[in-house]
């Protein structure tokens, strides 16, 4: 199923990835080819087949609720691209 430029822009928006017009055109072409290949799945009958989320059947793995030391603030902030004193600096969320 071929995609349109608008659909690609919509997906990019949902994924919060900025794209140039060139990139939109290329993505439309390449994604359409790949989606076409996915149609192979329609030839498999999965009536009544349960989905698999992962291949080793573990469920509800629990651990004891014990407190642990957290890394200190300076260590955590060292990787942040923009820091202001003890804070991470971001653009205003509310206008």
């Amino acid at each position, binding site marked *: 199923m071929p995609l349109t430029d608008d659909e690609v822009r919509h997906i990019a928006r949902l994924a919060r990835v900025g794209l140039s017009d060139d990139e939109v055109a290329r*993505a439309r072409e390449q*994604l359409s080819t790949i989606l076409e*290949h996915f149609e192979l799945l329609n030839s*498999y009958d999965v009536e009544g087949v349960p*989905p698999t989320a992962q*291949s080793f059947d573990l469920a509800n793995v629990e651990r004891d609720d014990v407190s642990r030391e957290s890394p200190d603030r300076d260590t955590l902030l060292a990787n942040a691209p923009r820091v202001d004193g003890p804070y991470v600096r971001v653009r*205003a969320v509310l206008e």
Partner: protein
Amino acid sequence: MTTEALRPDAILDLPAHEQAKQLRSSAVTSRALTEAALARVRAQETSLNAYITITDTEALEQADAADARLRSGNVAPLTGIPIGVKDLLSTKGVETTAASNMLRGFKPIIDCTVVAKLREAGAVFVGKTNLDEFAMGSSTEHSAYGATHNPWDLERVPGGSSGGSAATVAAGGVALSLGTDTGGSIRQPAALCGIVGLKPTYGRVSRFGVIAFASSLEQVGPFARDAEDAALLLGAIAGVDPQDATSAPVPVPDYTALLFGGLAGLRVGVPREFFVDGMEPGVRDAVEAAIKVFEDNGAIVDRDVTLPSVPAALPVYYIIAPSEASANLARYDGVKYGYRAEAETMWDEMEQSRGRGFGAEVKRRIFLGTYALSAGYYDAYYLKAQKVRTLIRREFAAAFASHDLLLTPCSPNVAFKLGEKVDDPLAMYLNDLCTIPVNIAGNPAMSIPCGFAEGLPVGLQLIGDMFSEPTLLRAAHAYGEITKFQERRPAFFGGHSS
């Protein structure tokens, strides 16, 4: 005749289990061995580009600490052995990039569990190896740090995504390295570089601290030049980890002790779905010859095995893996770590950070996943893929009810030329036709060298039942001892250090 002690450079040529003996008998120090490895790795870098970061200073400190342990007798099997680590694995204080501009300069505050275990064992880390960005690719060309080259032919790709780890072992820079395998990223580069690569059973090895791509599919595993070394490294990293709730509470056997059972009596299946159209004739011949070796050495070969849903594995994978990736990579928002663009508003800043920080293939997969999970398409793509995944798992389980091993080609082709497929995503995806079904099912599998086609290595894939790594390693060891393909080395091997 006098026996002359081997020079460190000659010891570096040996498999890790032989290096360990030399270290323990004080024939060489870890420092000398590590210096030889660093010199060779550095000398080879201009041709291979197998590393993103080489950690000389840290490696020599680790080597000195290992030498102290060796003198005191407090040794583990890998104490003092130089190792390469895929740059997807977090290393405390050492830049970890996932080969992405998004993570340039990022220094993790923790070691991943696998690296922590090897550190504890006294291994020496020479550096962080190159990969396709975020492990998405089959050629190591999708790296923000340039492509890695194949030591068998520098014009060709080493495979991927763990291409740097495979190339450095094939070239003799180190005897051991770690990769990750989400759809073939250990086995396919092992095949294309003519070495041994093992993807463990899902849950066998902790994923804690490994930069996440597709959490239901990926595993960390070893690259080595023979099965005995792969057993050694797997034994050192396997086991349940309280930090990874998907790690399996299954005891870790002594893989080395279980290596020596031979091929006689093994029930081997050859599933026809893996011999795909378009497979190179030279690859087919080498794999057929390998199956004959199994047969001639007492294995019971069954050619009537069929896994009819295996052809669906590729679309299943390219729905499930990108869906998981689109969620896992949502964390890169340019706020707490990673690349951050400058823009006027929060949303513009986030979109530009992600738009410029991620490379083309990563964006493609994020879009595929976002599309497959979006309203109106979830049932048709994601849920359908998960259901077909169940069919594939069931077929593997049925095959292992009456077989110990499945033998298949690992890649339908030998190493291809750099640039040949990089702009054609679907052609690149088709490289992993033979490896992807195994990640979908969760089983363990290996690639081992089984000959050459047009002068380039061919890999034989061994697939086992869940947690049957000992059977895989036993078969790989016996086959290697019989054929000696593992001893064939590229002209580029070693020798490049002064």
